[in-house]
């Protein structure tokens, strides 16, 4: 497992999908939030039409600054014609998304598998 002091997240590429596993249980500190956001922005910048999944399995706490940064990353992904989905958000954090109505902005899946499948489903029009 990645040393959380060194890496705030791990990246795994599964076919076309870039999966980011956030490593920190508590994403609160302003500096950490900034570092994570900058590194994720770089990742999005470097991947054309990114299919980005952010896995929150390890995350127990986050601050509202994280929500703001997620919105910024989401915007950047959309600018690059990419797609971003979130997965495995713990119930207490999910409530925070709900309160701030961000559950309507982000596509959130309960499990890693469900999120992967959502990326793989090709959307065809009705014939």
């Amino acid at each position, binding site marked *: 497992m990645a040393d959380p002091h060194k890496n705030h997240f791990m990246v795994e590429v599964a076919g076309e999908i870039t999966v980011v596993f956030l490593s920190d249980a508590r994403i*609160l*500190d*302003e*500096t950490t939030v900034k570092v994570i956001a900058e590194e994720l922005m770089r990742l999005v910048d470097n991947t054309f039409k990114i299919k980005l999944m952010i896995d929150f399995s390890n995350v*127990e*706490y*986050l*601050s*509202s*600054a994280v*929500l*703001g*940064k997620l*919105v*910024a990353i989401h*915007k950047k992904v959309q600018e690059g014609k990419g797609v971003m989905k979130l997965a495995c958000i713990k119930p*207490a*954090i999910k409530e*925070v998304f709900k*309160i*701030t*109505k*961000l559950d*309507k*902005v982000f596509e959130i899946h309960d499990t890693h598998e469900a999120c992967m499948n959502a990326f793989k489903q090709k959307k065809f029009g009705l014939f």
Partner: protein
Amino acid sequence: MPIEFLHTPDPPPNLGKPLLEMELPSVLPEKDIALNKLLADLHERNFIRGDEEDMKLRLVLDEALVNAIKHGNKFSERKKVLAGLYETPTHWSLRIEDEGEGFKPSDVPDPDDPESLLLEHGRGIVLMKSIMDDVRYYRNGSCLVLLRKKG
């Protein structure tokens, strides 16, 4: 609908018995020290229980202290933030006060406006209001009082 909260130029009323009061400089590392002290005290007094409450109060305190240091005092070394915990027989409250000029309620984004959904900031008051029983701003916004009913 814009979020409703008390915002007045008046000073805050007497919040009851002071349980913990501290003064911190306007730098972010100090925020975590104050946050952890307040949180530990809230647990010790049984005002909050369990991991979920811990997370929520951490969010509230982080929001309140970062706002005071960043937006209120603008990281000025000469300015201090006062943080305190108080109780009455029925309520406990947190008071976070900075030396800034406060803010205008009209500057707070309306959470129901679809455009504000995509703003990077402006979720703090909505979050604090959903977690606490009341959010009140005194001295034009430079003094925040967060209330919670006991029990």
